[in-house]
């Protein structure tokens, strides 16, 4: 029972998403209940009429009741269809609201929240989960309700006919209702095994599809087929266990239902022969006993569904209830702050860990200056960039623009002050032009073209099948990492913020892309306050100043010439690169 209560607790909030449609939702439940009760009444009334006719009641005196039977039966069906219509209407409306709520929520949670998770996975999961909730309100909850209402109504009806029969039926009723609990003890474990093996099968198939080139090139098809077959067999075995248990549940349930009806028949017959039951009412009792417990069978179907839906609901609630890492002020905007960026004794640890990533960092970037942030991976370079965009707030110390702390800027103003060119560029599934204009939706085609030209992206965009109108993400537009970054540069140029954070790609790009991006960076940096997270000597040399980080502290700062001539941390860092006549620093 504890498990049931716990499950109920996880599912209860789903009803809350019906929000403003709650009255209609409850109304649909009421109509559904009416439909069920009318259907019992139809069965009972029909059987009673047959009994009465056989007992010798004349057709003429039964006629009004026959009309009543027609009305009750039709009303029952009408209610049933109406309920289905209402419950779907509520579900679709609620889903629409939920999708919008989730979008707003994602926006509110912001990059800080998403960066710590894999947003692609979240998105996919959430969308599937949202749809699953429709399944709950439209297809799981109504049968559950029916399973409760109908047996109670039916037992009451039989009690009216003859109380002893109700007493006979009761144990069967209880037995059927509890079958899933005593036969389903292994259900959860079996379900888990079925899911695990199915997951493993999926992984093997995905591996074989994604590695298709290798499989074909190494003529290893038979091996792949063998692996798939092995995973498949495991799934089938797990599913069979599951199916056997389910079969047992259904068999036992079915047998119990029929035995209940049989007991009613036997005891009823005995009562009739003893004169304790009017034979005219006898068929009604048997028919109600035989048909009315059928909804309980639904319990064996919905048991597993409930677990799955609860898991879906959990994931959706996790997002709806998550706390945003930062909250923005509603204060008015500051008039024209100077594009000076200052980190003052900033200390920061990610919410998911205790380890400080930044440990008392201070540096300043003056208007129009380009500063290269240098250091090994994990030194804290990207974190500085994220904090400047206020994905999170520092634990201690402060970051300011033009002397005003970041927290004092309303969000939109901060976004107009700082933009970024990330390493891992996300392209939306729209045209290349729309992708470039993401930060300036009203940009003209000429403006977009100029930005693309400055970012060295115009030529390759023109070479795409539909030029600037090519949809990014479709086959024709499978762009290389270097090309994507050039689009991001064009975005930043068009957005035209006074401060730009540029995250240089770590990976080796082809020679041409490297050169193109370097020229693009120069275009971005011209006249802007620029922070470059730099991995290449050629980029570092071009910066006005270098700030070297190590383990969350500033360990070296100065111009390239100053630092390289000394024996400081920076000189030691780049020494091997210089020796190998390479460009990428480790």
């Amino acid at each position: 029972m504890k498990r049931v209560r716990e499950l109920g607790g996880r599912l209860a909030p789903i009803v809350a998403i019906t929000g403003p449609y709650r009255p209609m939702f409850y109304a649909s439940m009421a109509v559904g209940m009416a439909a069920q009760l009318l259907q019992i009444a139809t069965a009972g009334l029909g059987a009673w009429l047959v009994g009465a006719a056989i007992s010798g009641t004349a057709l003429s005196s039964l006629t009004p009741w026959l009309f009543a039977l027609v009305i009750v039966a039709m009303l029952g069906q009408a209610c049933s269809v109406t309920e289905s219509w209402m419950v779907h209407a509520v579900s679709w409306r609620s889903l629409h609201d939920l999708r919008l709520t989730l979008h707003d929520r994602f926006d509110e949670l912001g990059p800080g929240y998403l960066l710590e998770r894999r947003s692609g996975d979240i998105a996919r999961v959430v969308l599937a989960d949202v749809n699953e909730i429709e399944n709950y309100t439209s297809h799981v909850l109504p049968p559950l309700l029916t399973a409760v209402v109908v047996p109670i109504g039916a037992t009451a009806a039989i009690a009216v006919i003859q109380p002893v029969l109700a007493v006979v039926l009761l144990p069967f009723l209880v037995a059927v209702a509890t079958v899933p609990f005593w036969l389903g003890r292994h259900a959860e474990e079996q379900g888990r095994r079925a899911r695990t093996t199915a997951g493993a099968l999926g992984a093997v198939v995905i591996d074989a599809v994604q590695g298709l080139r290798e499989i074909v090139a190494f003529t290893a098809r038979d091996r792949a087929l063998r692996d798939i077959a092995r995973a498949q067999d495991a799934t089938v075995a797990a599913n069979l266990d599951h199916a056997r248990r389910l079969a047992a549940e259904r068999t036992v349930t079915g047998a119990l239902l029929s035995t209940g009806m049989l007991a009613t028949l036997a005891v009823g017959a005995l009562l009739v022969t003893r004169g304790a039951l009017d034979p005219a009412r006898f068929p009604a009792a048997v028919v109600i006993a035989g048909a009315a417990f059928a909804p309980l069978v639904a319990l064996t179907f919905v048991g597993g569904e409930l677990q799955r839906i609860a898991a879906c609901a959990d994931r959706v609630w996790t997002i709806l209830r998550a706390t945003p890492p930062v909250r923005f002020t509603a204060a008015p905007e500051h008039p024209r702050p100077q594009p000076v960026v200052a980190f003052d004794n900033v200390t920061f640890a990610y919410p998911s860990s205790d380890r400080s990533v930044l440990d008392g960092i201070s540096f300043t970037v003056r208007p129009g200056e380009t500063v290269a942030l240098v250091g090994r991976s994990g030194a804290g370079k990207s974190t500085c960039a994220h904090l400047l965009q206020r994905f999170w707030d520092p634990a201690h110390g402060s970051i300011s623009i033009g002397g005003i702390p970041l927290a004092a800027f309303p969000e939109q103003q901060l976004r107009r002050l700082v933009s970024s060119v990330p390493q891992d560029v996300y392209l939306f599934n729209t045209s290349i032009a729309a992708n470039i204009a993401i930060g300036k939706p009203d940009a003209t085609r000429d403006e977009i073209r100029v930005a693309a030209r400055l970012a060295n992206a115009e030529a390759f965009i023109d070479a795409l099948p539909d030029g600037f109108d090519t949809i990014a993400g479709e086959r024709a537009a499978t762009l290389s990492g270097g090309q994507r970054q050039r689009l991001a540069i064009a975005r930043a140029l068009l957005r035209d913020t006074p401060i730009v954070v540029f995250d240089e790609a770590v990976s080796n790009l082809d020679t041409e892309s490297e050169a193109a991006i370097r020229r693009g960076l120069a275009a971005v940096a011209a006249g802007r306050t620029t922070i470059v997270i730099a991995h290449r000597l050629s980029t570092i040399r071009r910066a006005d100043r270098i700030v070297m980080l190590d383990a969350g502290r500033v360990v070296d700062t100065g111009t390239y010439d100053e630092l390289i001539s000394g024996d400081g941390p920076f000189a030691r860092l780049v020494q091997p690169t210089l020796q190998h006549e390479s460009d990428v620093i480790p």
Partner: protein
Amino acid sequence: MRTRTRRIDDAALVQPGRGLTLRTGASRIRLVDRRVLALGRGEGAVIAGLTAIGSMVSALFVAQGVLVARTLALVFDGAEFAAVVPWLGAIVAVLAVRSALVWTYQTRSAAAAGRVAGRLRSRLYRQVTDLGPGWAGGQRSGALQTTLVDGVEQIESYFRLFVAQLIVSLLTVAGVVAALLVIDPLIGVVVGVLVVVAAAGPAISWRFLGTGLRHWWTAAPALSAEFVDSMQGASTLKIFGASALRGEDLKARSADVLDANMALNRVEHAWLQPFSLAGAAAGVSAIWIGIARLDAGAISSTSLLLVLLLVGEALRPVAETKRALHFAMQGMGAAEGVLEILDAEPAAREGELTLSHGTFGVSDGRTALALDGVTLRYRPGDEPALDRCSIEVGAGERVALVGPSGAGKTTVASVLLRFFVPQSGSVRVGGIDVAQLELDSLRHSVGLVPQDAYLFTGTIADNLRLARPDASEAEMLTALEQAAALEIIARLPDGLASDVGERGNRLSGGERQRIAIARAFLTDAPILVLDEATSSVDVESERTIQAALDRLSVGRSVLMIAHRLSTVRHADRIVVLDNGHVLDIGTHDDLASRPGRYRQLLDADQADRS
């Protein structure tokens, strides 16, 4: 040619509402389609067996009805309880047998459906490998995986929950209606007609949903795509202050879907209403007519009781089929993807000739491989990816391909391995046109070291044995040593048996590259295609990898796809490619000394670094 985009496949996301079974409406496939049924080929006997068991279950339900009617009739006739007992005993027997049959049906159908899924998946994967990576690269990313994983499951449900159920239902309805006809023709005809009408409702209602369905089919995938896109790009939207605008878009798309859903909901339920009333009418009219006939003395009281108990049995299959229909719809949706794969024509056909490694004597100066006037368009109407492209690699020669990204360098490798078949021109390996070669033989002769080598989930040894299934431990260790990869397994806890993780993610890019080189050593193919890595490789491993590749190239004919100019100097010849054309061919010194594209690239590189 795997796509690098991060767009998520729509098909994986679109889950039509379960009550509104929508897929079939927009699908060209019918509910019971011969081509879909053919997917269960080989299971015909099992499905027939299941149908037989299912029909027996139904027959026993009818038998129960008859026995109950008989018992009730006895009681009405004033029989003693003792006279009723044998009938009750018969009902118990019916119950016991039926329970056993239900159990058998449930377990057997699960097993049969599992086999259908297993066979189908193997068949699909076999076909996918025949179609090859070239074809797969042209599919929407993720669509193949969705079909092979989820699609096959849905077909399984179709067979497990729909096919046999449909036949059993039809037989049961026919049986019960026949029984009613025997009892009383009028009742039989009326119930028969009304049950058919009730059953037809759900099956034909989607035909009337036409416009609504088309609406939904455009609106729902658009919403899915946009929703996922917005969430994946949430950070970008935020940074560029574009969330609000995008939110409006999303709202409009979601509202489109809502409208479509609501319209379908209205239309579908309006259509269902009369049909479901027909179902209710069947039971009511049977009772009414029955009572009237009894009153007229046309039927006995036992017959009336039979009518009362059997009418329900005629309606039960209708309800069960309605439930099963849901799985059928899903199966239909999946079937389209499945049939699309099975119907696709592999571009590369098997030839008959085989190559022996002896064909490529390094010393005799023959041509190892040659592209001769090759033109390839990925799709008809596209700009050619290769345009009358001719390249030759002599036996033992090392040729580098250079050119900007998109020049067609990787396409050359794909054409060589026959992942794509060019529209014109010929490709020869060892002097033989590849069209005449057995594909396996071709691929044994041409080793590939791709720039983004794919490692499979499993151990290092598993991944090496991909190249040579019978490789001994000693052979694997030698290959790893030559590939400068021994230190990788030295670092790992279980040596060769160490798990590389999903897609090899426990190894760095450079390490994966070296495993791929070790594979090439094991394959020991006389011809090599090296696609230089542009992925994250640090300076040290760049050097180690270069040395390993130099060792690998010894005694082989090598086509090297170079993305960085620094690595091509030592090639015997350099082919400069641009826009699918060969612009120039020569040694580094040749090309560097004369004006041309190569010099331009070289100069740009120099200027940029200083």
